[in-house]
């Protein structure tokens, strides 16, 4: 597919404090001593696009819901802080949060059609985040403008449509219009293109990029698709079993991944068959990684540790810290560069 070209918007260093600052965020299952997100640190600067990457079950989507304080019953934030423009969101009352969601912080989701109330017309839902509720006609005109702004043809007719009358791509554009209605500063987009056709994916990504540039929007893009990451994000955070294992500027990490998990992910995403004709895959599964409490959670699946037996005692005993490699690049691994790059990848 044709993806929008890379957007290195971080040429001039933004000296302002980050827009979104997540510190040591922990999300647990209520009533059980099990953490789904284990001490997540994350920052998103003004106008910055940060990609949060990981496979299914790594805690990406839970993180998205935790940031907007919309965790479903059964999951709760047990520790940590989420600051949005200097304002703490964890523990903020539902009443105050309604003034933040849809205004400062908007969201896009997977499966856009199921995100629209089937019994309510598009314009009603798009109008909900609008700050000033003017007359019905003025609001409708504003909604039509928003729909036109996200490239919806015949916006007057679509405004009166119901969700079942929209295609997936059209529904995601509607969700985008609703997300932009409140003039947000941060957009959290959770797999916004996963359920869409490849050609529609590219259109939606282009739309995201256009809106990002037009509004100097900060975006936290949650995805498992590395081609989207490299084309679209300034910075990437790789998540495994509720932890960030590597983060840094996208071009560097995509070119020289430091963490064995990132390396494996990138190799799998290239879809280049190995010598025996099979597509590369990461052995084992991440489903049990959450119950690993000691050592590195990736250790059982790690090819670097498997190749260097002297690492095993360290990897299985203590979890490595997130260590800086300079230039905002940090990784969580005991192996040295030589050990990591020594394998014939």
């Amino acid at each position, binding site marked *: 597919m044709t993806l929008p070209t890379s957007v290195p918007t971080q040429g001039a260093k933004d000296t302002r404090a980050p827009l979104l600052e997540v510190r040591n965020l922990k999300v647990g299952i209520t009533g059980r001593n099990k953490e789904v997100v284990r001490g997540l640190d994350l920052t998103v600067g003004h106008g910055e696009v940060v990609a949060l990457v990981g496979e299914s079950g790594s805690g990406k989507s839970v993180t998205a819901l935790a940031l907007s304080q919309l965790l*479903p019953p059964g999951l709760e934030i047990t520790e940590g802080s989420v600051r949005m423009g200097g304002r703490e969101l964890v523990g903020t009352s539902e009443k105050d949060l309604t003034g933040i969601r849809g205004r400062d912080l908007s969201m896009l989701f997977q499966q856009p059609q199921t*995100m629209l109330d089937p019994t309510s017309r598009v314009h009603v839902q798009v109008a909900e985040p609008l700050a000033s509720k003017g007359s019905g006609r003025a609001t409708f005109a504003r909604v039509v403008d928003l729909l036109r702004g996200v490239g919806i043809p015949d916006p007057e007719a679509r405004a009166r449509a119901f969700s079942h009358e929209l295609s997936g791509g059209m529904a995601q554009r509607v969700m985008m219009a609703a997300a932009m209605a409140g003039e947000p500063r941060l957009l959290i987009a959770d797999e916004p293109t996963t359920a869409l056709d490849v050609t529609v994916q590219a259109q939606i990504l282009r739309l995201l990029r256009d809106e990002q540039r037009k509004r100097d929007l900060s975006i936290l893009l949650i995805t498992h698709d590395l081609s989207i990451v490299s084309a679209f994000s300034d910075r990437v955070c790789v998540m495994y079993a509720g932890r960030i294992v590597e983060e840094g500027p996208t071009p560097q990490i995509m070119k020289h991944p430091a963490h064995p998990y990132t390396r494996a992910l990138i190799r799998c995403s290239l879809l280049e068959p190995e010598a025996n004709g099979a597509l590369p895959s990461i052995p084992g599964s991440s489903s049990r990684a959450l119950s690993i409490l000691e050592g590195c959670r990736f250790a059982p699946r790690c090819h670097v540790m498997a190749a260097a037996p002297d690492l095993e005692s360290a990897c299985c005993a203590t979890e490595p810290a997130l260590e800086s490699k300079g230039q905002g690049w940090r990784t969580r691994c005991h192996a040295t560069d030589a050990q990591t790059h020594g394998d014939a990848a």
Partner: protein
Amino acid sequence: MWKLVLQRLSILVAMLLIVSVAAFAVPLMSDGDPARTILMSRTSDFNLDPDAVESLRTELGLDRTLAAQYFGWLGHALRGDLGFSFATRQPVLSEIARALAVSLTLALTALGWALLVALPLGTLAAMRPGGKLDGATTLLIQTLVATPEYWFAPVSVLVFSLWLGVLPSAGWQGPSSLILPALALSLRPMAYFTQITRAAMSDVLQAPYISAARARGLSYNQSVLRHGLRNGSLPVITFFALWFAGLLGGSVVVEVIFAIPGMGRLLYDAVINNDVPMLQGAFVAMVGLAIVINTAADVFYVLINPAMRGRHAQ
């Protein structure tokens, strides 16, 4: 939308025709000769004059073929002529219309009241599963289901009519005489409506569009009101229609206890008196109305949930 309504209407007409055949067959199913039955009900004498029977058979057209009899009967029925009651000698249609008006009023009052309690209660219970209100609601549902009308009706008369003296104990004069019977009739539908609302709403509240609405800045309560209730009320409509159709046949127990001249009472008397034209007419009216109500519910359902439009029309 109109395509759907037309489609439903044509099904409705077809079903009414089937019902008419069944209604026509009612006296055939009862043992014996209608002419003899009529004469017996008039004379209370088992020794009938054969000539009288024969002349009545000719008069009633019973000497014609079954098909001719059916179309003759259908022609009259379509013009609103359902014959005369054996017992009261009054036109069946006007008797049924009067009784149906009573039962309609009673059923709508009872079900409206049940819905008025059930929708908010079921929704609030679903919003805090396992909470105090949820527990109390479950208890209330079980109590209501287990309260028989034949117990509640006399007890309510005892309390409100005899002890407090605020409401009439029986009869059908004015709105005050509607309260106790409607209350007695409303208990079980109220329990079921609450249960269905609670179940439907707990599903709806987990739907992605509720989270999405909250992500747009609506509070939880606003999301439930604006995007949850309509979706959650869909199954309730179906059950409302079922109960409505059921109650139109009248509740014999409640109507007899409160001496209300509704359909239940009418059917009870018609059966006792072997009043064939009345039974036929009541049968057509009740089944016909049940079909009309279910059709209306179908159309209403699609009106609320537009996503069903495409699926139904196929």
